[in-house]
């Protein structure tokens, strides 16, 4: 058995008196596509932040490819092989699509500042290689013809895809997507999930997807983790999770509905 890409053990994140994430365990193998679901405020993004080093976890271990990475800065963790997207798109708005991806390709760049100043052969070769690589990732995400458009001028769906292209360009072993389908309609969501599955197949990496809408993620992921109030309430195959009384409670329970002030017609399955 090969070693897991990510092994999170009892990761806990506490903000003052609030435990946003409690004893979070997750093991991901290469090539797995796992969905993370749960209602608003369940701790999904917090789990991402703990894994990617945005906030160092209060306790527990984050082990990446056999190495403990707690307390490392996000750029170090990215270099180790985790890339992510953000719930509220965080592109470099005033840069072109190509430059957004090229920023993420900068690792493996050997030539330093002086080489850039002198335009040395090594520097030019590096730039050439980076540009080529970036264009490949743009093509994978269907953005090849948008390479010179400014990120802020792209339509919403393309911004989401550009963010994925940018994350992929860092050469990750694990790709974390934070609600990549947010704000899309049902058919767009399905198309995006298909695209995510293709990425997994093509690059052979592990992918962890946060999705608010349970039905969307059900279709593509082999495994689901369900969070509620920071606690992992269920895990397993989509079919298992769907039947889990705790999950139904969390999603459709009275307390949840009251909290959100919404009325949902209960569907019978």
């Amino acid at each position: 058995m090969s070693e897991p890409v990510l092994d999170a053990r009892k990761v806990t994140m506490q903000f003052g008196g609030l435990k946003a994430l409690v004893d979070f365990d997750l093991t991901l193998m290469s090539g797995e596509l796992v969905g993370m679901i749960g209602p608003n405020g369940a701790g999904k993004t917090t789990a991402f932040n703990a894994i990617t080093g945005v906030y160092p976890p209060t306790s527990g271990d984050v082990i990446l490819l056999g190495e403990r990475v707690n307390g490392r800065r996000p750029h170090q963790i990215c270099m180790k092989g985790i890339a992510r997207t953000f719930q509220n798109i965080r592109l470099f708005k005033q840069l072109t699509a190509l430059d957004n991806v090229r920023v993420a390709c900068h690792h493996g760049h050997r030539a330093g500042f002086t080489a850039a100043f002198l335009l040395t052969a090594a520097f030019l070769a590096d730039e050439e290689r980076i540009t080529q690589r970036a264009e490949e990732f743009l093509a994978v995400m269907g953005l090849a013809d948008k390479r010179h458009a400014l990120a802020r001028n792209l339509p919403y769906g393309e911004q989401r895809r550009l963010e994925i292209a940018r994350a992929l360009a860092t050469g990750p072993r694990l790709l974390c997507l934070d609600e990549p389908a947010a704000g899309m309609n049902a058919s767009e969501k399905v198309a995006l999930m298909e695209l995510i599955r293709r990425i997994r197949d093509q690059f052979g990496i592990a992918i962890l997807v946060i999705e608010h809408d349970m039905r969307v993620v059900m279709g593509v992921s082999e495994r689901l983790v369900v969070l509620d109030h920071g606690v992992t309430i269920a895990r397993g195959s989509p079919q298992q999770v769907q039947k889990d009384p705790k999950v139904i409670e969390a999603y459709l329970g009275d307390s949840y509905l009251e909290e959100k002030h919404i009325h949902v017609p209960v569907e019978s399955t």
Partner: protein
Amino acid sequence: MRALRLVSQSLLPFVAGLAVLSMISKGLSGSWAIVLMVAGINIILAVSLNVVNGFTGQFSIGHAGFMAVGAYTAAKITMALRFVQIAGISSDASDQLFFLLALVAGMVAAAVAGLLVGAPSLRLRGDYLAIVTLGFNEIIRVIIENTPFLGQATGISGLPRLTNFVWVGMGVVATVVMAKRLAESTHGRALLAIREDEIAAEAMGVDTTSYKVRAFVIASAFAGLAGGLLVHLIQLCTPRSFTFIKSFEVVVMVVLGGMGSVTGSILAALVLSLALEGLREVQEFRMVMYALLLIVLMLTRPTGIFGTREIWDILPKWGRHRAQGAAGGSP
């Protein structure tokens, strides 16, 4: 053959610059030359500050402090080597060589100062840098005024006039080439990414602190170059040339030209240096105008004249509009 092409491409701006500058300098004399040289020094300052304030989105307001470090280092070196001559070459050539040495030493000293100031403050948000650099600018003054070795408030006088049109011009060429080649390199893109979204940049593997510090150190080095050129032009090195007022002048140039636009900085530095040359005597009015300019710009057009674009991004568009009429949209 390929190597030759690379070398020529790399050195082209410098060789061409040297040739053109030498030609111009022959036909240039008197007070005009001095005004142009001061403007050139301001271009070096504005373009280098733009690397920090424009490219990287941090905000330094103490550029004159680093200028002072470079100026005093260079001045002390030329004063020490005043009566020394390298054997076998003419006295003039010897002086020029020593001047180059002094300028480079000034750049190195300013870069070290930049590292000492930047490393602690750039780990934090950009606005801390503003007050730290403002403080640094004042501290440099306090140190100079209390250090007999640096001539205290009177400063160092009797410096040889080594700065000429070619030196300043080559300084401008070096600064602009640095800024442009940086902007179009992977390092420059990392800086721009930090400006756009620091958290996202870090998540994409950009070591933000390290990049910010490196940008700051480079900018400081070129401020040091400007300082060295200035004191060997006015033949006097006093703390009065490097007060926070000078720093604010440079900030105004960068903001007016557009943060991130190299050509914008050049243009703003030229305009402010030349147009306000007449206002030199009434400093208070000039500074009040600068202050109002900053406030009005921020309230109405915070991107400055060019924003992050360059002149040529805008000029062809005018041409196109004229050609296609109002229907000509963006590509």
